[in-house]
């Protein structure tokens, strides 16, 4: 994985140490250079300090994201000059945020960089599921769409309902009415969006991927891969499917056929 970073020299060093042997990190000093890297034909993950971006830079990054969805990691100090651009990126892209000074800053940065989701997969999946998502209550629709785009979000059905501001039972009924699988299934699908790139396009050990993504074990990760893609993680790494095929598999598994429930498949 290639990482292109618009950050300070100290932060660039930290990013390089975090990525280690699992990718290459290139530092850029201007927003234009960052946007050029984003629009290049080669896949990359963008790492950005919003204080170096500013309002205009954030708007340009949002526009570029609409054309060419890329993984974006915003490594932000909690300072007023960083917040306005951060809000724009949070609202209009699938950016992941790592806040400097948080107790888990280092591990959060590692997760964000090494498990950077495939932005194209996330965008394509939410586009494919849009007819179903439009039938959901507003906040649930937004939360679920964000989850499926970024691979991050609530880890349990209760947490998802809390995020969406509705009762668990109401959420379950709404999902069924929209012909979507249960919340547990959707959360499992979102988690796979998160780890998909790490599985098919990196050399991270599967055990490490499973642990970082919150799976109980590597076996659980493989079980989910088999459920959604029909193959184990090792097979997927050897025979990486196209984004279109991955989207098709995920869409088929998260939409409900008449009278069929698959919750037991992701226990």
């Amino acid at each position, binding site marked *: 994985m290639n990482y292109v970073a618009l950050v300070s020299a100290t932060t660039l060093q930290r990013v390089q140490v975090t990525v280690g042997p699992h990718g290459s990190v290139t530092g850029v000093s201007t927003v234009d250079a960052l946007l050029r890297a984003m629009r290049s034909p080669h896949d990359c993950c963008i790492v950005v300090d919003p204080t170096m971006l500013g309002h205009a830079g954030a708007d340009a990054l949002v526009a570029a994201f609409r054309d060419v969805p890329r993984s974006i990691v915003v490594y932000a100090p909690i300072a007023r000059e960083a917040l306005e651009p*951060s809000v724009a990126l949070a609202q209009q892209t699938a950016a992941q945020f790592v806040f400097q000074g948080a107790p888990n800053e280092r591990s959060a940065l590692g997760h964000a960089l090494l498990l950077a989701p495939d932005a194209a997969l996330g965008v394509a999946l939410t586009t494919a599921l849009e007819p179903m998502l439009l039938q959901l209550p507003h906040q649930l629709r937004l939360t679920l769409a964000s989850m499926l785009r970024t691979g991050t979000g609530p880890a349990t059905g209760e947490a998802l309902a809390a995020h969406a501001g509705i009762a668990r039972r109401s959420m379950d009924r709404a999902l069924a009415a929209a012909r979507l699988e249960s919340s547990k299934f959707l959360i499992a699908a979102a988690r796979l969006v998160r780890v998909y790139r790490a599985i098919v396009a990196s050399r991270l050990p599967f055990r490490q991927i499973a642990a970082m993504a919150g799976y109980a074990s590597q076996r659980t990760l493989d079980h989910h891969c088999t459920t959604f893609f029909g193959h184990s993680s090792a097979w997927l790494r050897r025979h990486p499917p196209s984004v279109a095929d991955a989207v098709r598999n995920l869409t088929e598994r998260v939409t409900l056929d008449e009278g069929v429930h698959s919750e037991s498949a992701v226990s």
Partner: protein
Amino acid sequence: MHAQSFLDAIGSAHSAETRTLLTVGFGLVQQYHAIRDRGFDASVDDAALAALRAQLDTLSPLDREVMALRAIADALPHWDASAASAFGRRLVYTTLLQYGQALFGRAAATLAVTVLELVAVHAELDGEDGLSAQARLLCGFAWRTLGDWDASRQAYERAYELSRSAGELTIAIRTRVGLGYNASARGDLPGARALLRATATRAARLAPEALPYVYLAQANLESISGQYEEAVALCYRARQAAGADEEMQYASMVDLAQCLVDYGAPDVAEKALRAVLLSDLDVRHKIQTKIHLLLLSATLRREADFAALRDDLVPAPFTVRQRALYHLYVAQGLRTFGKLDDARTSADTALSVAREHSLFQLMFQAEEEVRAIEAAASRAHRVREEVLEAAPRAPRMSRRLERIAGAISTMLEAPAAV
């Protein structure tokens, strides 16, 4: 409940600056509750936040607590931002966590627990398991400092559950480390040892970046057990496992120095601390390191160095805990040089500061020091010290110490490599 804690703290504040800090903190927490209940309303909240920011402008901008409070004030207007990704909520919870940590640094442990538990509960209600886990981890540490083992254990156990579900493995490992510290502090050394051994195995497989925490906890345990050789080796292992993590490098070097002193190798300990001073660390870590060097200079009987460090540290921007520790070490040093009257004055100061701010561990150490000063007057105590100094060091440990000293000397010669 949080209101009462803040009001009690404001009522017992000893300076105008502390009162201002606590008042602003209380005001911001109240603002947080209001915004959480009804959303951000610029027509009402902008003025309130501006007034609180204005009070912060009268205080030192470098103070950790001031920075944390300013971050909360900056974050609150964005509470509702990007509800889909919960960016605003995560931002506010993170700033509140930082505030809780800053309160802890000022030895306001009771107030820190109040803020951290607020974050823990609200974040969990909002489905932010990772943030709730972080808050509960910090609560576990705070409760242990306050001596409430049950509350500490409950906080760590819940933090473990939440961190596993959120995939926060480093937090999960640190909760087990926290439980290990609890066990050893309660005297259950075999239980602590077994728990930390299992945790080290798990961390090596799943979260190697958390290994330094485990090794330092194991070193602490071995040091308590009197197994100083093992403690030194574990600290050194933590230093090596820390890699580019400056905070862990600092923590491991300081713990290594402490273990070396306990073992009777203060000269090697001094090298470890001087290596820390040469590194590119935060000023508060360097102040802490100089405080430890102050004690070491007394242990090594270098009166000139001791006096120089003591004077150098007088204008330092201490935290409350550092101020108590400084006076405690000055007392111990002066006792070493036979200046018992001055030592007693410093020990009394340390005890007074520790009592005032409920720093129980430092309070006990200061009381111990007062007793030691009183005993130092007796001839029997002086004779015992002379006998201990004459005890030979084990040859195997001498060789190991030579290797460690050599490695630290290399670090001193090439500070960029640290």
